[in-house]
């Protein structure tokens, strides 16, 4: 008797465990990707990255997401072989069904998390999305997540070789104030030269930072007839004119569009320091 009861209980237990899982479709919209990118932007503002670094933080997660989407959509061509050093991402295992859009999101969030500092803030977004997706279709979610993470690892391995890490601890830009031809920081912020070693990082498309060498600016000279002085004077004159015309002048609008100065000096109240800002 006891044995029968035990067997029955086990059966009930087993059946209840095998209760049919939800199999709703998981739809990923462009807004989801926007949300992830926005979260990255907010975190970058908090963590304070300079614009060049911000561009790198945007690039890798989006490439990962793109590669996954391209794998499932023949309208898109993979970037493998087109970007320096990028090899084809792994294909998902044939056994599992994978939601490619979901996997793309996972890869985006995972790589973003590795690139920023305040990981907890990225995890907050990720975990809330994971909870929703898992609730809809745990099997699909798990297989897609695993694939997304696999691609993230693949891209991360590529990313790791771009020499960025090495440039972090390279020497700071050395100011030589005795040489008037050289750039030097100015008050009140005395902001440092940013990213003096950026050209040592692997490029994505061009062969190297040296592929398109700009013509050097005219040699420094304060002789009135020198090309340098003339260009300097031109900038000075325009700057005076548009300052007079005020913020509505077309030139100022253009300047503001292009402004990616990572620092702004604050002179309000008790504050006086070089502060860093970001316009991603």
């Amino acid at each position: 008797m006891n044995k029968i009861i035990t067997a029955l209980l086990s059966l009930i237990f087993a059946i209840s465990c095998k209760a049919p899982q939800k199999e709703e479709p998981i739809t990923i919209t462009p807004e989801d990707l926007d949300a992830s990118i926005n979260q990255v932007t907010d975190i970058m503002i908090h963590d304070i990255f300079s614009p060049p670094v911000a561009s790198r933080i945007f690039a890798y997660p989006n490439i990962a997401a793109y590669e996954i989407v391209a794998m499932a959509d023949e309208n898109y061509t993979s970037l493998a072989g087109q970007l320096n050093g990028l090899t084809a991402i792994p294909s998902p295992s044939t056994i599992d069904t994978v939601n490619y859009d979901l996997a793309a999101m996972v890869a985006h969030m995972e790589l973003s998390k590795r690139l920023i500092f305040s990981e907890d803030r990225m995890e907050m977004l990720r975990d809330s999305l994971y909870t929703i997706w898992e609730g809809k279709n745990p099997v699909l979610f798990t297989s897609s997540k695993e694939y997304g993470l696999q691609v993230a690892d693949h891209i991360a391995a590529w990313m790791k070789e771009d020499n960025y890490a090495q440039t972090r601890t390279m020497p700071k830009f050395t100011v030589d104030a005795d040489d008037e031809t050289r750039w030097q920081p100015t008050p009140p912020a005395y902001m440092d030269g940013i990213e003096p070693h950026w050209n040592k990082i692997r490029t994505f498309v061009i062969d190297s930072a040296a592929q398109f060498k700009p013509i050097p600016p005219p040699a420094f000279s304060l002789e009135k007839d020198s090309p340098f002085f003339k260009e300097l004077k031109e900038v000075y004159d325009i700057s005076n004119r548009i300052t007079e015309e005020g913020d509505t002048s077309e030139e100022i609008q253009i300047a503001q569009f292009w402004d990616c100065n990572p620092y702004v000096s604050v002179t309000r109240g008790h504050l006086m320091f070089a502060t860093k800002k970001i316009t991603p």
Partner: protein
Amino acid sequence: MHFNYTNICLCLALLIVTACGDQQGSLFSNPPASETGITFKNTLTETNDLNILDYLYFYNGGGVAIGDIDNDGLPDIFFSGNQVKNKLYRNKGNLQFEDISKTAGIEGNSTWNTGSVMGDINGDGLLDIYVCAVVGINGFNGYNELFLNNGDGSFTESAAKYGLDFDSYSSNAAFLDFDMDGDLDMYLLNHAVHTQESFGKADLRLKRNYQTGDKLFRNDGDKFTDVSEAAGIYGGVNGYGLGLAVSDFNQDGYPDIYVGNDFHEDDYYYLNNGDGTFTESSKQFFGHTSRFSMGNDVADINHDGWPDLISLDMLPQDENVLKSSEGDDNVQTQRLRTERYGYGYQFTRNMLNINQQNSTYLETALMSGVAATDWSWSALFGDYDQDGEQDLFISNGIPKRPNDLDFINFVSSEQIQNKMNNTKLMDQQALDKMPTGNIHNYVFKGSEDLMFKDESGKWISKDTLVSGATAMGDLDNDGDLDLVTNNLNGTAALYINKTNNKSNYLKLKIQYKDKNTFGLGTKAFSYAKGKLQYKELYTVRGFQASSEPIIHFGYGEITQVDSIKVVWPDGSYQTLRDVATNQTVIVNPENTAKFDYTSLLPHQKPIFEKTENNLGINFNHIEDNYTDFNRQKLIPYQISDRGPATAIGDLNHDGKDDVFFGGSKYIPSQIYVQNDSAFAPFHIPQIAKDSIKEDVAAVISDFNSDGKNDLIIGAGGGDFYNKMTALLDSYYIQKNSEFDPANLPESFQNTSVIAPFDFDEDGDLDLFIGGQSISNDFGKMPQSVLLTNNNGTFSNKNEDALSDLGMVTDAIWTDFDSDGTKDLIVIGEWMSPTFFKNTKGQLSKVDVVQKDLNGLWQSIVPFDIDHDGDTDYLLGNWGTNTKFKASAEHPMKMYYGDFDENRQTETITTIEKEGKYYPIEGLDGLTSQLVFLKKKFNTYASFAGSSIEQILDKDVLEKAEILKVQELRSGYLKNENGSYSFVPFHNKLQVSPIMTMLSYDFDSDGKEEVLAAGNYFGVKPYHGRFDSFGGALIKGENNVILSAQIGLDLSQKSVRHLNILDLKGEKHLLVTLNNASTQVYRLNRK
């Protein structure tokens, strides 16, 4: 039964809280308002339009002044309020006060009052009150008000009548008779605000600005005339004036002025020329000043009759606050500010400047223990415990800290900035981000040898108030000094001194002539039991306050003062003799005679006299631009600035000594040969050609025994690395008039010292070559070598005893065991002085020196300092006037390893605080090299207060090597029958690293003395600048003369070598400096 420690703490805390009614420190008690009647409370009302975000000095507080306004013998108290009405309290005796503000008519009409000063402006013998105001920003109205004392308890506001009704940004004012015409003139201290125009070059101070610029007014009887321009007073848009002190700093009879400026503007040191004008001279007399200068005070703390000065800043002690607050500039910014923009060196900490008698000030705040008192406003020196030494009270606190780094980051983002600039939406959120800073007030007990002991929490209870302006006076007429602080959002605090009759005192009340009725500028020199105490009467002291016009001395057990010399403002003096203590003496001018101010100047005949033309040696050492901290970002100090080399010897074979100076990287060395009457540059092409190397050590001698001197140069500089040939030492053999390069065994370290000696006694000179460091791998032990000479060819002896010797800086061959053979002593950084016994050419390390003596040793010289007939060894070390901290119990520890696994090593220097070890670097510093820490600590608050164990993982720390320093003091190894124990020098020899020493009979008294010199600048701005040591002549254990008194001033210079030059039998001192011109002094011999 065990008592839980926490419970005891709780009980104690409870006791303290319950005792709040009448707080008791052992020296001061704080009677409550209910007893005293003083209810003044400087309440701030923050609004959307007026808060710390809108007005940078929102938290600077009001003023306080103590003086007897009704001449009833009891000092009364005046408070000015920022937004609340001023109050005047009449002292009724027994510490009971009556609020007479309404009837007195002093409540004031300005929107925002600041400093308040009592002084007899019209010379009628009654104290008037001048109240400063900020007017013209933030909607502040009104003007500076002058309340003339009617003598009946009422006052009449008369600022306009006297021309003192300014509507500018005033923070304080001081009365002084700068033109010595017998009436009181006025200096008005104004403060700047941040605008786009307030930054830029220092010469902004030359262009006058009505609202922000300071002003000087001459009293012309019924009117004050602005004479600022003619008198040479700066009044620019960058004058953030917060501190103001008047004193005759140079003891020439004319009052001088010190102005403390906040932010980037330098402090001003106005020396009175005696003709109605001043010369601002801060750079000449101060190597560096406080950066965010706040209040200041003046008193003679070392009994030499010359006024010393403290200037306050805001460096926190607490690790949590320290590591989350904005601190000093970075190296390159500071260089731009000083070299390009014309500012002096400024650092974020209090500065204690010891007057060197009309020479540069000796700055000792770190050593003296008063450098870090957090957000400090007022400093007041006074002998609070009446033991004859000046003590120090510092008021403290700020409701919100705008220099909090997380707050700064928050408001730095463009989005927040936009919102804050255009709306007030973000303000409350921004305000909430600022942590509070209600740090307790500090009190320090002064003692001899320039030391102060923190007695906060003992002498006074630790408060949670925000105290600003502070005034001093004897409120209960019991002879000791009481204090009053004006508090923000809290009732004003009285600190009633309980010394009473436990120790003796003397109070002088001055009654002077003309219109200077209270005798401002009167000086008193007190002589008792061989000890001099000196005071000068100025009432505007501390911050936004004036103290009771009295002179107070403490005497301990002494019941009778031998004499008091009173020097009057007009330059006459009289002497009071055999004055009994514990009384108030009223002093009038009587039987006066002219005072001879030159009698205060040093009497010693100068030993050193600067030669006019440097004997033709015009060598200017230029240090190259290499900045170690740009590459090895975490090293504790630079290694690239140890040159130049100096060597003396005959290079042109004419029997006369010549001089070789090394060049820094890419700059050729220079040679000066001795002619008949002077030295002249001399070109040796083969040597000059080799300009790539940085020459840090050199020796001239005949190494190949051909009768002609050769030259060996040690290369360093810290820039070249790995096996770059520019790291190889050079060897030039003289042949005829040519110098041929020869080889030395290869060695790719930064050399520090070359010590030649024939250790194997084969008739030629062998070499010890000390290795100081390895480029790009600071912390790794370089290999020092012993080279054996064989007919002018050197080979490495591969001396085992020298392996892992350490980071060597200096070495001498000396017979330390008195066996007739010279042995080797090597010193260096992060190592102990190491003694090698020489036994027939074999070196062996011997254990004759006291343990735990790892230091940052820089120089060594043999000298019998205790005159007992044996040789002691004087050792130059880093000194104690530093943020480094080391003891045998708690050594400074430097972790060395590859913490981020990027195949490059890093170092993290840590010091102990309350049992835990903290890195000296903050989060920005550490993450500039160790990027991974940014993930671990994404706010400053999360990092602040973390010990090294909390910052780096255990396995990382375990893999690291730890280098240690137990001793930072310079001193000597005392020879006691061949074993050596360390004896530190007096504190005046601990203010800077001692880089070099020379033993010689400088004063030709038949006995040798040691001249010590140093200073060092190769540290990050957080460490300041070790620049105020001018050198010292060490004659014996207790006989040390600072250089200012012997004609030598090597302050603000970093000395590398001292040498004696013989020119036609006349002896000269050659001083080689880093990054400056060489100096030559003639020895004034008997």
